């Protein structure tokens, strides 16, 4: 038994998880089976809004292999079961019941109306065709402004409105700043813009799946979920299953990005069907079902007004949002734009701030958390408006940012939104990024291209961003009416042989917790990395937990692991002192070894674990075995930040955008595993860039999703993306013992505005001041021609012809 010498934290360790993932020995939910397993297939509405007059399942029941066919009446006869929304953002928020299967009306295309249970998946799917539904189409409402228009069709007739809630923050009323209307009326410069956050589809690679076994002493549910613990509690609350009779397992989960942060009708349905039949059942979706029925993200209209002095000092910011909830409220859906409320002021010292968000129902798939959840939208809004303000002032956009940002020596800093940023160094990250990027050189080249009227123009896009990570503290999320705490749990069990089991409540879906947590524990206990096993994603082994989302795993869950390790060391110290007949205070603990100060007398923590297991000679009052539990509830969020710079070449003749270089310097505090961090940044960048250039969920006027497969929804491939230059500065968080801040969402949050700012910058001199996302060749080309026409740069013939092109569609 040897202790480790070199610190594990900070080391670029290849991941433990990889062994099973690269050899195909993975436990995806759809890989699992049980004796006598039955399969579910769901009939989904083709209409966005329709009355269901009748459903005839008699023919389907006679089809080969079919065991049962159920509608809402069968599964929920008294119509009392509703899927949970755990974030009532205002006391008067309207929360219509979201049924397991639609009973009387369907409210979005893709909503389930019946479920077939058969011996094989193929037989279940075949039988869907034999179900006859008599639909009576109802008027459809799509689009945020349309939904609020007078006389608009109502998604939920009984509510009398499509307005869901109005949530307001005002710095004057909160006492965190001044009155924004005064700031605007007294300002030397006011810039007002409307930005759209298009609807996106999270598009995790593993389709959702769940399997339920009701035949044991407990009901066991396997699900491709980010939130096994929340799912367990919510399923118990919703269905009346005694919570201790339910075990939820999230085995290997193939990505989430917020898209699996949900409690879904299909899981509820599987639980009900399994209990009804007394047999194990499994549901696995097709990709088309994912696109149609798994929640979407973003979908906001942002009206932003910024007030400033002529010298560039920002004096006020007013944000009015409309946010599309879709047809129902998801688990945390209404809270998503509210998270953005705290981030619109970003890294800037803004003296007056007003934020108001109206959440709206439409006949579309519901929206909910998607990577970054509220913070990408906010970061986009502020970083785009800063560029527009710079243009209005004739200032260099980076100079405008520098003038307004919080200086390094001003931390901790309480913002106009009422958050206290514990640490940050925007200067250092920006300086490093500008050097790596060759900012000045690229600005020179940009000028040269403009001067020679090159058909391919160069744009430089900036995003200097911060975010709030580590969703917690419980009392703060509670003050925002979030329906759960923000703590996280961990247990450490030192086994008789000196090996270590770590149990974490932060269930992983690709982030590498098993590796990172092993590194943390190896250092804390002084045991070899290989001697640590991390258990997660099973409510039986990890009884307590609040799961993984909002970049909370390391900043909350990882710190719970540290706290559990500290308790183990304390107990081990007491036992060691007893065995070596000294005072615990006389013992030094380093690299897994307790040494009596000033002597060569020592023992290892592994030996203490064995002694604690034997329990032959323990101090009075000390329980046998060496283990501990800890629950960590942080005192503050964490605030990663960084500077992202994008150089985009825009072909003014075709509208094609080529990302020439992308440089980012992120400050995520201390780093546990640089390899994992780099991977997270790369993936995040790809997702944010995809929002800027490629992806959009599009409905036609009847409410049919026209981007319902990977053939229509443009997920970027390797050939669509460049390589990125990533680097870091390290300004440790001051509010947790590891100094970590979180990294999972940073790339996505920062990159979208960097790219769009670059595209607009490339063609600003041609009269363009905005291009809606995604900046497809069609949109860019149309914007350039519209701009030139407005500036009189194009002949009337060409201008007239081009003016008829609708640039609002044609995402791809």
């Amino acid at each position, binding site marked *: 038994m040897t202790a480790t010498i070199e610190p594990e934290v900070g080391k670029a360790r290849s991941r433990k998880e990889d062994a099973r993932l690269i050899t195909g020995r993975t436990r995806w939910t759809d890989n699992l089976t049980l004796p006598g397993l039955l399969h579910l297939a769901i009939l989904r509405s083709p209409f966005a809004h329709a009355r269901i007059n009748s459903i005839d399942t008699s023919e389907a029941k006679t089809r080969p292999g079919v065991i049962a066919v159920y509608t809402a009446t069968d599964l929920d006869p008294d119509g009392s079961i509703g899927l949970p929304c755990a974030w009532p953002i205002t006391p008067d928020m309207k929360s219509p019941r979201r049924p397991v299967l639609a009973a009387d009306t369907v409210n979005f295309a893709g909503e389930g109306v019946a479920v077939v249970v058969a011996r094989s998946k193929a037989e279940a799917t075949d039988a869907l065709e034999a179900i006859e539904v008599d639909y009576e189409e109802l008027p459809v409402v799509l689009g945020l402004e349309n939904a609020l228009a007078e006389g608009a069709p109502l998604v939920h007739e009984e509510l009398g409105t499509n307005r869901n809630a109005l949530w307001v923050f005002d710095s004057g009323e909160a006492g965190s700043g001044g009155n924004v209307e005064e700031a605007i009326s007294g300002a030397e410069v006011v810039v007002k813009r409307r930005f759209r956050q298009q609807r996106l589809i999270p598009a995790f690679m593993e389709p959702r799946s769940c399997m339920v076994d009701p035949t044991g002493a407990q009901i066991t549910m396997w699900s491709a979920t980010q939130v096994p613990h929340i799912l367990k509690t919510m399923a118990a609350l919703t269905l009346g299953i005694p919570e201790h009779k339910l075990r939820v397992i999230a085995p290997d989960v193939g990505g989430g990005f917020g898209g699996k942060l949900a409690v879904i009708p299909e899981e509820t349905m599987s639980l009900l069907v399994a209990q009804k039949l007394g047999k194990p059942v499994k549901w696995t979706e097709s990709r088309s079902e994912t696109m149609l029925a798994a929640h979407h993200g973003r979908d906001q209209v942002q009206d932003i007004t910024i007030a400033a002095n002529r010298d560039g000092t920002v004096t006020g910011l007013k944000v009015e949002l409309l946010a599309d909830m879709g047809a129902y409220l998801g688990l945390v859906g209404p809270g998503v734009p509210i998270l953005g409320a705290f981030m619109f002021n970003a890294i800037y010292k803004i003296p007056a701030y007003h934020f108001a968000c109206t959440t709206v129902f439409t006949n579309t798939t519901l929206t909910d958390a998607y990577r970054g959840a509220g913070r990408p939208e906010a970061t986009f809004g502020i970083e785009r408006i800063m560029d527009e303000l710079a243009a209005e002032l004739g200032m260099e956009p980076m100079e405008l940012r520098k003038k307004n940002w919080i200086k390094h020596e001003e931390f901790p800093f309480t913002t106009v939104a009422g958050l206290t940023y514990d640490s940050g160094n925007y200067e250092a990250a920006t300086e490093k990024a500008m050097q790596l990027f060759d900012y000045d050189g690229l600005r020179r080249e940009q000028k040269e291209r403009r001067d020679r009227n090159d058909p391919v123009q160069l744009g430089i896009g900036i995003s200097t961003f911060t975010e709030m990570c580590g969703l917690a503290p419980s009392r703060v999320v509670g003050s925002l009416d979030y329906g759960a705490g923000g703590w996280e749990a961990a247990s450490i069990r030192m086994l008789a042989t000196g090996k270590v089991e770590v149990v974490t409540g932060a269930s992983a879906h690709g982030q590498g917790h098993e590796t990172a947590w092993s590194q943390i524990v190896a250092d804390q206990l002084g045991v070899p990395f290989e001697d640590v096993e991390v258990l997660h994603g099973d409510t039986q082994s990890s009884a307590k937990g609040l799961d993984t989302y909002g970049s909370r795993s390391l900043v909350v869950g990882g710190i719970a692991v540290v706290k559990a390790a500290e308790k183990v060391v304390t107990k081990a110290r007491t036992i060691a002192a007893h065995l070596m007949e000294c005072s615990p205070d006389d013992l030094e603990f380093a690299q897994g070894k307790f040494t009596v100060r000033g002597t060569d007398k020592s023992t290892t923590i592994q030996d203490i674990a064995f002694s604690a297991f034997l329990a032959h000679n323990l101090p009075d009052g000390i329980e046998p075995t060496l283990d501990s539990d800890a629950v960590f509830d942080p005192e503050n969020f964490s605030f990663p930040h960084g500077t992202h710079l994008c150089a985009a070449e825009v072909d003014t003749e075709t509208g094609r955008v080529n990302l020439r270089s992308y440089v980012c310097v992120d400050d995520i505090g201390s780093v546990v595993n640089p390899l994992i961090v780099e991977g997270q940044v*790369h*993936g995040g960048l790809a997702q944010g860039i995809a929002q800027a250039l490629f992806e959009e969920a599009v409905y036609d006027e009847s409410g049919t999703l026209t981007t319902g497969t990977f053939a229509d929804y443009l997920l970027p491939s390797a050939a669509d993306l460049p390589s990125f230059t990533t680097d870091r500065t390290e300004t440790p968080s001051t509010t947790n013992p590891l100094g970590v801040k979180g990294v999972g969402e940073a790339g996505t949050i920062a990159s979208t505005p960097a790219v769009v700012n670059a595209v607009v910058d490339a063609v600003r001199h041609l009269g363009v001041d905005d291009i809606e996302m995604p900046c497809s060749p069609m949109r860019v080309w149309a914007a350039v021609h519209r701009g030139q026409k407005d500036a009189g740069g194009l002949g009337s013939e060409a201008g007239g012809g081009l003016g008829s092109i609708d640039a609002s569609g044609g995402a791809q």
Partner: protein
Amino acid sequence: MRITVTVDGTQYSDEVEPRTLLVHYLRETLGKVGTVIGCDTSNCGACTVHLNGQSVKSCSVLAVQADGCEITTIEGLARDGQLHPVQQAFHDNHALQCGFCTPGMIMQSIDLLADNPDPDEKAVREGLEGNLCRCTGYQNIVRAVRDAAQHMSPGAGPEAERVDGSGVREPSAIGGE
């Protein structure tokens, strides 16, 4: 219909429905669940396997079309406990996160390297265009493929998988992807 196939070195003979896709046969009949399904339009490439030494998306091949063929899946790559150089390179370069696309990515990368043993970045990106990943942003996958190229001996591509040891690439029953 009865088909006989050799999968990862073992011969199987089974009755299959004519409509059964190869990926469903591999997963449901043979229990070879290392090959996964990510979409229903042949866009994602998660189900990529080697059929007679060429990469195919097994959701686009009928099981009956594979009759008499040799198939290699991710589960048949490692030999004598040794990872294939591409598997090793994916691990070394952190070329995976959730890992769902990984089996297909690795199978496609091996075929790519068989065609072009020393691809530049552009060639790797274009060669992997039919395989989608949502976690990595592809950068480390590209790095892994180029790293594997440096570590692979000539002939370590799909030809080496042939159980008859002939190492000869025969014309495929199916025209590639």
